[in-house]
C-alpha cells in the first residue's frame, strides 16, 4: 500500500477538459432574491399572493426532486409531510405566537416523521416504496378527524398570525416569507448535493451494489435523503399555513402529492431549476384552468380541468423533452 502512495507524489494531473461551468449557488440565490424583491414591489396583491405560492411549492418540489430525481426514491406522500408541517406550525403558533419558533417546530416535527418513514423506505424499492408513501398520504389527513379535539376535524384550524411589520401589505410579506424559505432551502440543497453527498445519493440510485463496494452506506444515504426532503416538505407546509392563515385536511389531499411528483417530472427530475419550473406550473396551470372554466360557464369543468391540463402538459413535455423542461436547451449553434 505504501508503494501506491509513493508513486503518487508527483501526479500528472491532466487538464480539466469539458467540465461544465456552473453558476455558484450563492450567486443564483442572490439574483433570485433581488428579482423577487423587485417583483413584490411591482406586482398587484393577488399576483404577489400567487408568487408567494410558487415559493412555497418550490420549497417542497426542491426537496422532492433531490429525493426522487437524485436518489431514485419515489415518494407519493410528500403532501402528507406538508400537512404535518402545516399542522405543527398552526398548533405552535396559536400557543406561543412566535413565527420563527413555529416554523422551526414544523421543520423539526416533519423531519422526525421523515426519519420514521425514511427508515421504512430504505428497506423498500420501487412500487413497494410508492405504496408505503401512498399509504402515508392517505392516512395522515384522516388523523385530523380521529383526534378532532386537537385538529378540529375537516373544519381545520385558523392561525393567529402576527401582522406584517410596518405598513407592508400582507401579500408582499407572505411573498417575502415564502421566498426566503424557498431560497434558503434551494441554497442548502444545492450546496449539499454538490459534493460527496450528492455523488453518493446518485451512485445509490444507479447501482446499489457498486455503491456499497465503493464505501457508500446505502441505507444511511437513503434515509438521509428522505429526511432532508421531509424537512423541506415541513417548511413548505408551514409556508402554506402562513399563506392560507389556516390549515385543514382538504388543503393536503392525495392529489397534492401526485401533483408534486408530476411537477418535478415535467420540470426536469433531479434539477433545482426543474423544481422551480414545476412549482411555477403548479400555480399557473390551475389558474389557467380556472379562467378557462369560468369562460366556458360550466361548473363541472372547473374542478377537473386542472387535472386534464396537467395530464396533457405531462404527456406533451415527456414526448418533446423526456428530460423535462429544464433539459431544453435554446441554442443557435445547432448543426
Amino acid at each position, binding site marked *: *500500500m505504501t508503494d501506491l*502512495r509513493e508513486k*503518487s507524489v508527483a501526479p500528472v494531473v491532466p487538464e480539466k477538459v469539458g467540465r461544465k461551468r456552473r453558476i455558484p449557488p450563492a450567486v443564483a440565490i442572490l439574483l433570485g432574491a433581488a428579482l423577487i424583491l423587485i417583483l413584490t414591489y411591482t406586482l398587484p396583491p393577488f399576483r404577489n399572493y400567487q408568487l408567494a405560492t410558487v415559493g412555497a411549492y418550490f420549497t417542497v418540489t426542491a426537496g422532492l426532486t433531490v429525493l426522487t430525481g437524485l436518489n431514485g426514491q419515489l415518494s407519493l406522500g410528500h403532501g402528507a409531510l406538508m400537512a404535518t408541517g402545516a399542522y405543527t406550525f398552526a398548533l405552535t403558533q396559536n400557543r406561543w405566537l412566535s413565527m420563527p419558533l413555529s416554523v422551526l417546530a414544523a421543520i423539526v416535527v416533519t423531519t422526525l416523521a421523515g426519519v420514521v418513514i425514511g427508515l421504512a423506505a430504505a428497506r423498500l424499492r420501487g412500487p413497494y416504496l410508492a405504496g408505503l408513501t401512498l399509504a402515508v398520504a392517505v392516512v395522515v389527513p384522516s388523523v385530523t378527524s380521529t383526534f378532532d379535539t386537537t385538529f378540529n376535524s375537516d373544519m381545520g384550524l385558523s392561525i393567529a398570525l402576527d401582522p406584517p411589520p410596518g405598513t407592508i401589505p400582507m401579500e408582499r410579506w407572505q411573498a417575502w416569507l415564502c421566498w426566503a424559505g424557498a431560497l434558503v432551502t434551494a441554497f442548502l440543497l444545492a450546496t449539499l448535493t454538490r459534493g460527496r453527498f450528492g455523488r453518493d445519493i446518485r*451512485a445509490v440510485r444507479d*447501482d446499489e*451494489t457498486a455503491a456499497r463496494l*465503493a*464505501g457508500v452506506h446505502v441505507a444511511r444515504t437513503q434515509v438521509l435523503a428522505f429526511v432532508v426532503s421531509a424537512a423541506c416538505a415541513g417548511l413548505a407546509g408551514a409556508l402554506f399555513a402562513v399563506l392560507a392563515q389556516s390549515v385543514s385536511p382538504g388543503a393536503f389531499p392525495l392529489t397534492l402529492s401526485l401533483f408534486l411528483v408530476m411537477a418535478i417530472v415535467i420540470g426536469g427530475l433531479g434539477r433545482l431549476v426543474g423544481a422551480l419550473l414545476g412549482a411555477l406550473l403548479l400555480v399557473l396551470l390551475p389558474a389557467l384552468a380556472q379562467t378557462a372554466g369560468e369562460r366556458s360557464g360550466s361548473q363541472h369543468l372547473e374542478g377537473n380541468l386542472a387535472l386534464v391540463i396537467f395530464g396533457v402538459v405531462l404527456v406533451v413535455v415527456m414526448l418533446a423533452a423526456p428530460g423535462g423542461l429544464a433539459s431544453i436547451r435554446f441554442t443557435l449553434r445547432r448543426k
Partner: protein
Amino acid sequence: MSTENTAHELALDHMTVRFGGLTALDDVSLRVPSGRIVGVIGPNGAGKTTLFNVICGFVTPAAGEITLDGRAWRPRPHQLNRLGIARTLQGVGQFGGLTVLENVQVGARGHRSKGEKASRERQSEKDALEALDKCGVADYAHRLPGALPYATRKRVELARALASRPRILMLDEPAGGLDPEEIRWLAELIKGAGTTVLLVEHHMDLVMSVCDEILVLDFGKPIALGTPAEISADDKVTEAYLGAAA
C-alpha cells in the same frame, strides 16, 4: 505451500457456503499473504465469485472463518473501502448518471494520509484524477460512462478501485471482453499495483503470467493450490477443465 510463515493479510479457513441444497463453496481455505498476487480459477459455476462475495460480506457463510490481519473479521460491504479493500465487479458496474470523474470519486472517499492538508473533496478529486491517469482514461473524466467503449469502461472500473488507495485489490474477471493488447496492459497494471491482489479470471495467460499463487476450484471444492507451474502440471486441474479422461 511456500507462504506458511509469512504474515497473512487475509485468510479464509474452512469456508462453506450453501444456497439451499447447493453447496457453492465446500471447505475452502485460502491464505493471502501481504503483497502477493493470488489467482482463483475454475470452470464456470465453480464458486469463484461466491468466494469474492463471502469476502465482501454479500454472502454469509454456513461455516468457516475469515481473518484480516490475523484477527477474526465479519465483512460488511460498505466498510471494505475504509479497510483498504477494493473490488471490481464482473462486467461494468458503473453509475450511468455520474461523469467518469464522479464515478471514480465515489470510490475515492478522500481518506488522507498524515501530512496531507487538502480538504476531503479536493483529496478525493486528486486521488480520482490520479487513478484515471494511471488507467489511461483521464481524457474522459467529464464524459458519461454509458457512451464509452467497453474496454474504456473496464478501465474506469479499475480506476474506481484504485482511487481508494487499496491495500487489497479484488478483481473479478478484469480481462473479460478485452483484446490482447488491453490484456497486456492489464497484466502490467496488476503487477505494478503494489498491492495485494486477488484475481478471479478465465484468461489463463493472464493468470499464469501475473499470479504468485493459484487456487483452483471445481464445484465449490478446492482441488489444487500452488504456483502457476505446479497448477499447469496438475492432472486434477486438467481433468476439471477438460473433463475426465476416458
